[in-house]
């Protein structure tokens, strides 16, 4: 298309870039919004899943005879066959559908499962034990050195000698261990589906962040065509990367519904949800790091490990040390295979762990040299991998002002004390790609002036609906209420899954393109009436008017009535970023934390958390800020509170309930200050997604703040009171 798509100039917009209330906010706040869990049908059965109580075993038999006799139990279905292996506790092995929750609970209890136990291994923090148990995968290695090996040099030997030489020549060397435990996604709406057959066609109300991409995953195992499946998700109660796929239990729900001839709602119980429906890989690292006397890192040598669970994997060695790219580095990564559920993408895969495992080391360099951490981060910006030095520097200055870094910072462990309470500051920086993925939007303009934007996207909670409405209404010069947004069905034009922070950029691209094309058609119709050329017209304040003579105008309704009998439908397509400037990718971000630590109890209290984030052109700053607040709180959660606790012998997930799996509550988060960094060059580079970047830095920033307070590193996140006290004890003995 010859037409150039563009955003309105900054400062000229009515809605875009100005804080807007969510168009579905009242529905969400009053219970009117229907999530998958809320979709009810007449004669619907409730179904639940039986998860394996054993972390590793072979199924010998599943006996439903007692369960089937329980009043109210309608159908039992096995999900594993005799001989199948179970590799983690909670892996679904059967489902029961019945008339009530009570009947289903009794039914699940009455299922008899015979198993053959197998050896269990879950110790992901202990590399030597994993090696001894034969539970490690292929080691990945990546070496980059300023000096190249000669033709006759053994590469490994050369690297070893070179790194030893560089460490020896460093003004300061830190040798340390850091880590971060597995956490789960803990979506408040558990995974599941409400399914209903209409003949051979399946309507699947699925809790998914992938509305356009999941119909085929139902169709194939059910032996029907993708076109016979409609996936619907008007609202989703949390996903965070765990809800891209149609799990086997959702397919089982459809099978039961087909066999029984009734709709079925199968949602996971909380404990099964936590045991099987998503977690983030752990990461533990041994590192030697050398720097000059200014704190500029010259050599990095690390070995890290961690677990994806039952499948091999771990934090990629390519993101270590995180964002910083020192001249000499050797990174090795060892995956550990455990009897725990396989991880799923967790908000910014790899990045939070990499940040927590390496920007803590940068802070320890500052501590060892007695330097201000701010200065050490600043001096190392020259090596950032994403060429955003200037953005980081500007964001650091803003963040420092917001938290009062200059006045409050003190050398590590040397701050004022209030009884047993010490305080400290820490910081970290992060990066993320984002950018748009393929998306299609249909804009329909009806002859009565009604406008619809229709696409197979979903609202993960980021305000997708509202963003689409803002863009459409802005383009047509209409109020927000003048636009209807249809998302959440696989029958709508396909749009990207909500992963990788691509949603807002993707839907913004396709919607703006469709709306600009549709407006041009309206201009063409109106131009005859207004006796002017289409390019001389503008849409503003509910009117189509001649730019140079705004008295010559038509109301939006009058202009649309020129369509005649049929609505106008225009498809906006976005395949790849094509330098039209509507969207972009690659962001920075700086975060600073202020904490208080009680040296007697080990309790860390958040005082203040500051986030400064660039994200290109911001469609709706209100929702963008909410995501930043949320990311900070999710970060505080994994920095201080949340961890999956597995029994080391049996692999049992010991805290798989909300009461036991600790997350912060309203009183635990302190003051949070968010600042969107959006100078003109950010606005002009177009839309970039935001979901992931601001959740990356909190682990390292909070750990660094705790270290600044105590003068002692608490090496592994979360920084629980027990770990704080253990670290203090170790330091006392040292």
């Amino acid at each position, binding site marked *: 298309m010859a037409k150039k798509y563009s955003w309105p100039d900054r400062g000229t917009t009515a809605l875009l870039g100005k804080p807007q209330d969510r168009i579905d906010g009242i529905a969400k706040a009053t*219970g009117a919004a229907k999530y998958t*869990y809320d979709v009810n049908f007449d004669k619907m059965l409730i179904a639940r899943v039986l998860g394996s109580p054993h972390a590793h075993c072979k199924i010998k038999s599943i006996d439903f005879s007692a369960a089937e006799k329980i009043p109210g139990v309608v159908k039992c279905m096995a999900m594993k066959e005799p001989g199948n292996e179970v590799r983690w506790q909670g892996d679904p092995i059967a489902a029961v559908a019945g008339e009530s929750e009570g009947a289903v609970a009794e039914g699940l*209890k009455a299922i008899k499962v015979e198993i053959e136990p197998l050896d269990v291994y879950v110790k992901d923090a202990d590399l030597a034990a994993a090696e001894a148990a034969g539970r490690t995968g292929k080691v990945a290695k990546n070496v980059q050195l300023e000096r190249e090996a000669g033709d006759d040099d053994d590469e490994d030997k050369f690297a070893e000698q070179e790194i030893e030489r560089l460490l020896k020549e460093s003004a300061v060397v830190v040798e340390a261990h850091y880590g971060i435990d597995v956490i789960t996604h803990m979506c408040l709406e558990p995974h599941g589906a409400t399914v209903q057959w209409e003949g051979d066609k399946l309507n699947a109300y699925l809790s998914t962040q992938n509305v356009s991409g999941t119909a085929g995953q139902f169709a194939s195992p059910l032996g029907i065509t993708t076109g016979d499946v409609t996936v619907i998700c008007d609202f989703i109660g949390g996903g965070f990367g765990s809800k891209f796929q149609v799990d086997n239990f959702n397919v089982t729900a459809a099978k039961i519904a087909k066999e029984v001839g009734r709709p079925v709602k199968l949602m996971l119980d909380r404990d099964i949800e936590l045991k099987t429906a998503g977690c983030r890989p752990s990461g533990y690292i041994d590192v030697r790091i050398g720097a000059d006397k200014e704190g500029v890192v010259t050599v990095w040598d690390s070995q890290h490990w961690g677990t994806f669970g039952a499948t091999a994997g771990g934090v990629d060695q390519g993101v270590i040390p995180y964002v910083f790219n020192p001249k000499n580095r050797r990174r090795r990564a060892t995956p550990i295979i455990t009897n725990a559920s396989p991880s799923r993408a967790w908000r910014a895969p790899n990045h939070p762990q990499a940040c927590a495992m390496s920007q803590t080391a940068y802070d320890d360099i500052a501590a060892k040299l007695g330097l201000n951490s701010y200065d050490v981060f600043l001096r190392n910006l020259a090596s950032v991998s994403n060429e955003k030095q200037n953005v980081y520097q500007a964001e650091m200055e803003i963040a420092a002002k917001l938290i009062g870094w200059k006045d409050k910072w003190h050398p590590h462990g040397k701050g004022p004390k209030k009884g047993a309470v010490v305080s400290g500051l820490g910081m970290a920086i992060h990066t993320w790609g984002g950018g748009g993925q393929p998306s299609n939007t249909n804009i329909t303009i009806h002859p009565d002036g009604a406008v619809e934007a229709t696409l197979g996207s979903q609202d993960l909670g980021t305000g997708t609906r509202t963003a689409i409405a803002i863009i459409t209404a802005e383009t047509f010069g209409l109020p927000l209420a003048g636009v209807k947004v249809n998302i959440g069905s696989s029958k709508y034009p396909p749009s990207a899954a909500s992963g990788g922070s691509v949603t807002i950029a993707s839907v913004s691209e396709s919607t703006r393109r469709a709306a600009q094309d549709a407006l041009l058609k309206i201009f063409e119709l109106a131009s005859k009436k207004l006796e002017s050329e289409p390019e001389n017209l503008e849409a503003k304040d509910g009117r189509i008017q001649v730019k140079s003579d705004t008295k010559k105008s038509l109301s939006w309704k009058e202009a649309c009535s020129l369509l005649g009998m049929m609505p106008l439908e225009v498809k906006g397509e976005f395949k790849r970023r094509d330098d039209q400037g509507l969207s972009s990718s690659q962001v920075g971000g700086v975060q600073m934390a202020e904490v208080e630590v009680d040296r007697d109890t080990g309790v860390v209290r958040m005082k203040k958390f500051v986030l400064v984030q660039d994200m290109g052109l911001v469609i709706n700053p209100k929702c963008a800020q*909410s995501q930043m607040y*949320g990311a*900070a709180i999710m970060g505080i959660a994994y920095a201080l509170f949340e961890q999956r606790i597995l029994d080391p012998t049996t692999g049992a997930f010991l805290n798989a309930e*909300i009461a036991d799996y600790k997350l912060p509550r309203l009183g*635990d988060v302190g003051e949070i200050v968010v600042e969107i960094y959006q100078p003109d060059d950010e606005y002009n580079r177009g839309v970039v997604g935001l979901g992931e970047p601001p959740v990356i830095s909190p682990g390292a920033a909070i750990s660094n703040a705790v270290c600044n307070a105590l003068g002692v590193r608490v090496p592994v996140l979360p920084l629980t009171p027990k770990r704080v006290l253990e670290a203090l004890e170790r330091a006392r003995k040292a």
Partner: protein
Amino acid sequence: MKDQRPSRAGESGFSRRAFLQGSGAAAAATALAAGSGVAEAADDKTKVLGPGPTAITLKVNGADRQVTVEPRTTLLEALRFKLNLTGAKPVSVDDSSGASMVIIDGKPASANTILAVACVGKKIQTVESLGGSKPDPVVTAFLHNDAMQCGFCTPGFVVAVRAFLDKNPKATEDQIRKGLNSNLCRCGTYANVIQAALEVVKGGSRG
């Protein structure tokens, strides 16, 4: 600093999980099989209910609603599956998330830790009653302050804020931070919930 949840009146003390799956279920099953399944209705007379599904009347959002429930049916299950009032959400098996919060006889309570039969004769108010053409100021404050993301915890939070401010209409920010720890949000909307609650305080809550 953790979990300073106020003890809430209006809760039955039942653990739903223990009731459904643990010794409670066994005891209930035995009692039902013996034909002497007894649950106490809210009036003082002991009424025999069950063993099977039983018709009861619940006073929900000002209207009498007939539902047929088993004696073991929780209020949450009755609201969601029998009355299609799905604002209260099933998030935790106990009351540790606050997502199923409703107001019973003027006091906040978790609908998943009380049985439907125990609510006969009580006034039950769900989040749906705070909507309508003129929403409750807490609802509009949640909207203006964007105190929601995925929104699954939001109805429970709205009820919690409503109940908290009814009792503490002039709450300070500090009191809000200390007093609203009953509800959990995974997306992290707490900062905005605090602002929403403060807006209601400043604008004056309902009489």
